[in-house]
């Protein structure tokens, strides 16, 4: 089967520092894949590179079998790649509804479909429905995280690049994030998940990649790993 996203040997630089040093990975359609590693090994940069926000100097990225390296990110978003960044990047002065409309107001989306997508988001995140007329910047951290995920869902993505969704959240919010990952998975949306929360990553994902020094060093089926696995110790040093 053809993978949804294929990353082949990408190298990315910030100025002179070599951040990605030949990253290769694959995500199948509808698959939840975890990306683990210590801070600063290039996990977020990998997501940014796939999203077209950072240009790799070498290597290539394929989406549904077609090369997409160098394509501007707004085109990638329209192809079906959703991005939920680490710092959430809510449009703070836009209301919750307007934040959602940034992804919803595309050509070729019928009113009926828009309503469906909004209803779905508001069913999963009732808090957002209550606060739909409120400015994004006035939401709590957890609510902003929900909004960031809901906003990406408006694009009807085939894959969501999810960067540390539980960072700094209360336990109750964390379990809500876990639920939404499961829901998206059941709907057939693929997820590339960067997380520090190892138990959550192992539970939510089918496969896990381990990164070190700007490259993927190891991969394993999530079901074969436990939190105390030597591999986890090796790459995360917990």
């Amino acid at each position, binding site marked *: 089967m053809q993978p949804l996203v294929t990353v082949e040997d990408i190298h990315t630089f910030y100025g002179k520092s070599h951040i990605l040093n030949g990253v290769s990975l694959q995500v199948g359609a509808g698959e939840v894949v975890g990306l683990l590693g210590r801070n600063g090994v290039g996990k977020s940069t990998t997501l940014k590179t796939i999203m077209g*926000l950072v240009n790799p100097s070498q290597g290539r990225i394929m989406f549904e079998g077609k090369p997409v390296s160098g394509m501007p*990110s707004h085109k990638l*978003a329209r192809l079906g790649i959703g991005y939920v960044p680490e710092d959430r*990047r809510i449009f703070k002065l*836009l209301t919750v509804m*307007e934040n959602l*409309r940034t992804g919803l*107001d595309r050509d070729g989306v019928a009113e009926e479909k828009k309503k469906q997508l909004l209803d779905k988001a508001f069913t999963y995140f009732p808090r957002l429905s209550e606060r739909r007329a409120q400015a994004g910047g006035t939401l709590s951290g957890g609510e902003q995280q929900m909004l960031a995920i809901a906003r990406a869902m408006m694009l009807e993505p085939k894959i969501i690049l999810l960067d540390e969704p539980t960072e700094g959240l209360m336990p109750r919010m964390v379990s809500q994030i876990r639920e939404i990952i499961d829901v998206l998975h059941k709907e057939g949306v693929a997820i590339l998940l960067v997380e520090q929360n190892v138990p959550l990553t192992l539970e939510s994902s089918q496969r896990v990649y381990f990164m070190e020094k700007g490259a993927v060093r190891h991969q394993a089926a999530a079901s074969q790993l436990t939190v105390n696995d030597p591999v986890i110790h090796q790459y995360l040093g917990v």
Partner: protein
Amino acid sequence: MDIPWDIIIIQTVNGLVSGMILALVASGLTLIFGIMDVVNFAHGELFMLGAYMGVVVLATTGSFWLALILAILIVALLGAAMQVVTLRPLLGRDPLNTILATFGVSLVLQNYALWQFGPVARKIQEPLSGQFSLFYLQYPWYRIVIALLSAAIIGGLYLFLKYGRYGIWIRATTQDRVMAQAMGIPVPWVHTGVFAIGAGMAAASGVLFGPLVGVNHAMGLDWVLKAFIVVVVGGMGNLGGSILAAIFISLLEAYASIWVSPSQAIIVSSVVLILTLLFRPTGLFVPTPK
């Protein structure tokens, strides 16, 4: 001392009228700065070209209103082309690059106008010549019309930004260019569109203001200087702030010219600028940052 109420009321009306035109010029300027971080030094020349387009279309068709609409459309297209050719390749570079680029464009446009239309000022005939009595003055209705039309255009812009699909794109891009792009918003075209809107608004004010001053190749300089002051005083990139600052500064100048000559009254806006930069550099009409 008697308070000269009649003069104060007349100057209030004058201040509001020029304030609204200034707001029209400044809101385009501030919108462009807000979204692209580009200080458009050619904005005054777009204002001037708008006025000349008005002269040309009025001479051909005889209709002021048609001239207004065509001038807006033509200059908006010109602005879009200018953005694509000169600014888009420079996006994300040091601001000095875009300042020099727009300054270069302004010199080209000014000298083009001088070459094409000559140094003698042209006149735009105002579309209505009625007057009404304001104390000892016969006050032209046209000035009131300008103020109302400017307010209507700014109001239209506000509604577009607030409720329109592309308005939301513009606000999202202004706040976070990168995330807007990741949400599928075609940011390069949003920039071009905003530049076109700003250019069209400058052209509108050029045509509307033409009948009051006469049209020449250097008319943009005064206005753009004042518009820059307004944009800084109102808080760079803050639309509402620019509009309030335009009215505030124009009123101050109008009142000042009760006691000093109008050319000296311009000093007032410079003083406001300096005081703003010294004591509240984020702008007078923005909420205090928390």
